[in-house]
């Protein structure tokens, strides 16, 4: 039989390493920027649409 699990727990250590934090932060920033990019594209679409009637009446 394998020995029972070693119950040692981390002593005086922070729960998360800075490396893990960098990795998670990068992923979060990427997700935020993706959603920003998509929202920008949507806002652009909306503003073009809402400007639609105005551009029609503008003189060429």
């Amino acid at each position, binding site marked *: 039989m*394998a020995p*029972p699990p070693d119950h040692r*727990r981390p002593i005086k250590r922070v729960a998360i390493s800075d*490396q893990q934090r960098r990795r998670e932060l*990068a992923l979060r920033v990427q997700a935020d920027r993706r959603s920003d990019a998509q929202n920008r594209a949507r806002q652009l679409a909306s503003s073009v649409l809402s400007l639609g009637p105005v551009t029609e009446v503008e003189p060429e």
Partner: protein
Amino acid sequence: VAGIELPHKQWPELIGSLLSNIHQVETHVKQATLETLGYICEEVPPQVVDQDQVNRILTAVVQGMNATETSSDVRLAATRALYNALGFAQANFTNDMERDYIMRVVCEATQSSDVKIRQAAFECLVAISSTYYEKLAQYMQDIFNITSKAVREDEEPVALQAIEFWSSICDEEIDILDDYRSEYTGDSDVPCFYFIKQALPALVPMLLETLLKQEEDQDQDEGGWNIAMAGGTCLGLVARTVGDDIVPLVMPFIEENISKPDWRRREAATYAFGSILEGPSPGKLAPIVNVALNFMLAALARDPNNHVKDTTAWTLGRIFEFLHGAVVETSVITQENCQQILTVLLQSMKDVPNVAEKACGALYFLAQGYEDEGSVSPLTPFFQDIFQMLLYVTHREDATESNLRTAAYEALNEVVRCSNDETAPIVMQLIPVIMLELHQTVEAQKLTSDEREKQNDLQGLLCGCLQVIIQKMGSIEGSKYAFMQYADQIMDLLLKVFASRNATVHEEAMLAIGALAYTAGPNFAKYMPQFYQYLEMGLQNFEEYQICAITVGVVGDLCRALEDKILPYCDGIMTQLLKNLSSNQLHRSVKPPIFSCFGDIALAIGENFEKYLVYAMPMLQSAAELSAHAVSQDDEMLEYTNQLRNGILEAYSGILQGFKSSPKTQLLVPYAPHVLQFIDTMYGGREMDDAVMKSALGVLGDLADTLGSHVGPLIRDSSSSKDLIEECMVYDDPLVRESAEWAKHAINRAVSG
């Protein structure tokens, strides 16, 4: 062999014939039989063995453990076998008589004269505490008496298991109480019996006693474990379980011992204080910490004992972690005491490696508290001194001891993260210093394997540091242009780093390049010819899937930075991403980001995505079908399913938006029914999280926005679109409400047009 055959219903006579050995007179046969049963229980999943056989195994094992068994070897083998068989005993633990009997035999075995049997019996109790927490109420008083005696009097391996029993109960109760507080469920499958709260008045004194049993020089032994460490850890878990209630029970111990001449007493008091800083409310702790802070700083500066200084620096770090920064209303750090704190911390960085490492850790949390402070950080006047000292620490001869170099770079990163307009010029001065260090590591040759390992560690730290600096300088408008003068040199160095064969180094370099791409924007195009090979290498790295995941994310960064300038590389990238999706070898966690990445690429290259539609769309459709119908057996699976759904929806959004206003929009019309059906099915399944909900609303709006009247009637007839949008219009999350408004508006336009 049994592990392979039993799940296939082969070798049915095995367990029966083993059990017939149990009545043998010869001790060694009994012992070997119990060991074999233990091995089988360890290897075979519980559902493979029918209840009748489980009952017979448990009977044999428990008989072997009984005090009437004369052979210690047989009792030990039986106790270890029970440890493995506990997972099979679900039905037996619901039966009061059977459970009573098993518990009685286990408790009796904790009193054996053989230390190994006592240790194995406590290991069983630890396993029972997590597997059958909700069945323990009637035994807790007895278990407290048994564990308490063992902690105080027994040999170390036994005492450690006895402490672990209480740590394990804390783990269970912390999880349950977290579930109670969870905004999703607000409830837990298992109720909390508040065993820790009830045991508190006796449990805390027992744990405090253990803190005085330190070993000499234990702080130099990384991974060391002894009664004092286990007791302190358990005390920390108890504090997290019961919160404020622990404070009055621990304070007298701290007050009595913190100034005693015996270092063990001073250290134990400090360790107790540090251990209870997470859990109780800041309101309860702040007045105590305000009084203690000066004492702690004096102890760190002047206590003659390294062990006390180590624990003091760690405790200061915990004070800054839990009582300072955005997490609390009023920080215990003020403009006035900040200077004194920094003076002591920086001074301690010259101390022995383990104390210096804790001082770096304390500075890390001190800085973290100022990350969102803007330009009023009281750290500002000290930036130069802090960087100087941290760089000095990284160059210490003994910096590889006690993880000191890593701690110094991590603190450096955190200080950079909390820099602002005012301190950016000082961070800028760091760039050539870090580049020089990195240059030296890539130039170093003919290294021994030990030196190579140390160099890899250092390269990883330096790339990580550059990543943080790039992100920060890129985000401060006034520094961005000054920073860009270093971009060529940084990129050159990062490309050289890829010569290393080390996974962590690759990952760190890749993250730094992603940050650089975002900061450089379209100017990053000039680096692409050289960088592309490493990008492809990263995407192909299935074994170290973290690298693959990071690289997929960097492709997203590149798309946003380069926009259509990424086009020449898209054939290669898409080929690899499609290959990755089809592979069974790639870790599943990488697949959702790959779908999101399709969206990034499509958004960047617009209608040029046309040639990939024929490959990407069927992939998206089959993944959508799988994920829409997925039955989530557990939280982990549910989370993964939602990540997958979100990735698929982000891909659809990117593709739809990319084609917006293009004459080729028509190409997407045939896919619209499937996309709607996907959202319908998910909505019907009622397991969408907020992120998926938001993405689904986005896709509904994008469909309407891009395809307009072509899909108007289709959306109108979709069962979910109206209900989903109406439901989300009154949602708590304002972003969900905003997405719903937008989608409704877009759909109305499509339907009326």
